[in-house]
């Protein structure tokens, strides 16, 4: 894996989300609690709603357009929808996204 520093955990409000632009498209970085965050595909398979604008609850996020609910851990959604998830880790508050998984050939 090739970890890329994409920002600080505190750049995202608790139970909020922001996007990172990547070669595979927008990835939503979702902060589910004070200390946890996940990286998921930002686009809802239903009608392309921007998931980063959804309400975050527990380890789930609800699409802002028509309320499909997705697991932040597995990407599994209601009605059989599925979104990709990406490896993300937090070190000393820094958010590190796995570059390889989002189409980066080498680490920066």
């Amino acid at each position, binding site marked *: 894996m090739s970890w*890329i520093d*994409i*920002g600080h955990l505190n*750049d*995202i*409000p*608790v*139970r*909020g989300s*922001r*996007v*990172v*632009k*990547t*070669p595979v498209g*927008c990835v939503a*970085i979702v902060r589910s609690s004070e200390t946890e965050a996940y990286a998921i595909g930002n686009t809802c398979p239903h*009608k*392309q*709603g*921007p998931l980063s*604008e*959804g*309400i*975050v*609850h*527990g380890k*789930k996020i*609800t699409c*802002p*357009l028509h*309320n499909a*609910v997705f697991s932040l851990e597995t990407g599994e959604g209601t009605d059989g929808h599925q979104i990709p998830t990406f490896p993300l880790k937090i070190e000393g508050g820094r*958010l590190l*996204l796995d*570059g390889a998984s*989002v*189409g*980066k*050939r080498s680490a*920066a």
Partner: protein
Amino acid sequence: MAQKLIVIGAGMASGRMLEHLFEQGGDWDVTLFNAEPRGTYNRIMLSPVLSGEKTYEQIETHNAQWYDDQGVTTRFGEKVVAIDRAAKTVTAENGDVLPYDKLVIATGSNPFIIPLPGHDLEGVIAYRDLEDTYRMMELGKTEGSSAVVIGGGLLGLEAAAGLHAQGVDTTVVHIMGHLMERQLDESAGYLLRKELVGRGIKVLCATNSKQILGENGKVTGLELDNGTVLPCDLLVMAVGIRPNVALAKEAGLATGRAIHVDATMQTSDPDILALGECVELDGMLFGLVAPIYDQAKVAAKTLVGEAAGYVHRDVSTKLKVTGCDLFSAGDFAEGEDREDIVFRDPARGVYKRIVLKDNKILGAVMYGDTADGNWFFGMMKDGTDVSDIRDTLIFGPAFQGGASGDPLAAVAALPDDAEICGCNGICKSTIVNAVKNGAHTLADVRATTKASASCGTCTGLVEQVMAVTLGDDFVIPAAQSICGCSDHTHEDIRRLIKAKALKSEAAVWQELGWKTANGCHVCRPAVNYYLLADWPLEYQDNLQSRFVNERRHANIQKDGTYSVVPRMWGGMTTPDELRAIADASEKYGAKLHVTGGQRIDLLGVKKEDLTAIWDDLNAAGMVSGHAYSKGLRTVKTCVGKEFCRFGTQDSSGLGIQLEKKLWGSWTPHKVKLGVSGCPRNCAEATCKDIGVVCVDSGYQIGVAGAAGMDVKETERLIDAKTEAEAIEWIAAFMQLYRENAKYLDRPYKWVAKVGLDWVKDTLSNAEERAALNERFEISQSVYRKDPWADHVKNHSEQYQPLADITLEAAE
């Protein structure tokens, strides 16, 4: 000639008696004295007033206006000091001597004050009337204040829970081994104590008080027998009541512990009746309203010479502390000839106990789950033989197999004389008849029969009787929980947030037992709204608990871009504003659409550009139009008298004033206004949430209109004479809606639930209106500001991507 009737005391007993008397007709010249400076109110609801769940106005039953309308001469705030039976006169405090043909004594009782040293210090009070209640509420306004309540019975605990809800550090001192020992056995008492302690109320049982300590004549604490001192700013004694008999005794009426009456409520003097807590009948005293209401009925009949007699019936008790669900009836002392059936569910905090003798129910206590209380109580009163169902008895009617598992079938099977409303002694047939005579809503049934109009705990049962009688025409308002995260309904949550002073989302989740860690997209926006509406100064609006549109202060579009609608006050605009909109449209590639709300929508703005376009619009003096909010949207106006040949008032001017007052406020659902200059109604005011139609004589204010998924004309709230009056009423209506409605109920849905009459009654009270306006302004001191400017300044980074790693990828 009219008979002169003098009534002493305007409490719950006499209020009800006079109501019956006037229903019966007859020619009476009534004078009503009351030591309290007010008319009759539902004393038993003082506790919800204390805890903040109700206001005094909501518990008034017969106010000065009501008595006025009945032609009663009221002398409120005046005591009767003597009765001269020979001369048939009473003497008022100011020396007036008034003759009577008939006299009714309904002086209630006095709270008992234990004569401990220090009991006469300032700050030692009882819990009996509105003054006591306000005194306790006042204490809550001082941060860090504390109170001691002596007495762990019904009243003491309601006082303690109320004080606690007001933020007062509260300790209960109770002499007996467990709380409410007269109504509860030890186990139930234990559960109750656990609940109260869990809330933060301190409870000391089996504890004696030694003396009340004071400084400069003011209470400072309570010293216990064991020497411990409990410091306090207020000491409430709730240790019992003593019938108020002095007046009767001095007049030479027969008295024992209270004024002796016979079953017709006559005292030893044939021209004097007495009823309520001040009487003794067959050796019994009365301290609950159900028997007292029966007495009121009898007394009214006796006065007109109709034969009637009081028949004693058993009563059951419920504690009116929100969240403490307990029920108690009958006798549950242990005894050799008695059998106990006990059911415990420690996990749910449920305890039920039935005491049987000769296969009949003698008493029932339950805590935690009291739904079946009335079922047991009914069998107890009827002396039903329960041998056949003994084994499953404790599980309640649902387990008795067959049809009775269905609550409606069980209600249908109840006999006609089954009691439904305990407080008012209303039986099933009375409700059924009222429904058959046209009372098709709960409010109608309450108004015609009084069922569920006192303590309200039988509301569900009344609704079931209505459902059984009306069949498909009546849908029981389902007690639907807010969402899967909680079993509470929206209404309960609103109430509990106020009552338990819950001021954060975490407090709501924890205290109300949320089943999920932090809610979901359904409950969070609702809870966030309730919190900010109830605690505007303390609670910090949480953007993460808002739907996208309200979080981003713009409407999200199907392609993920946003639309931006600046406010155009009252639909008026200027060349400068139009130029700024034109410039912004070009700069950010936004399409323009003239909305149905008299303003312009800039469509298709990228999220990253939102703060920039707002900054540009702000620079031209424009602010957010809140086209995305559950809050004030547009105030649509017509040109009015300034331009139009038919205009009667300055409709656009009034619309702008209203919009400037109301903008920025959050509401349970969106609110739109319209102001038309004459009844031609070009601003379509009669289908808005709030609409004003100007006429020559002033302003006709209508509310609860709709023109979306439903279409409905507004209903008239009031005709205001001046602009100022119109604005005051409208702001008060907004605040009443903000404080009471369920999240996502538009005003027309909410008004349909509470009834326009209630809204009108509440708002007709000038003091209440002023108080609503004041609370609205407090909230507006936080929210009447442009969220766009705020986000440009404080949150702009949230509109940008966290990072862009596409570029490096191309290397």
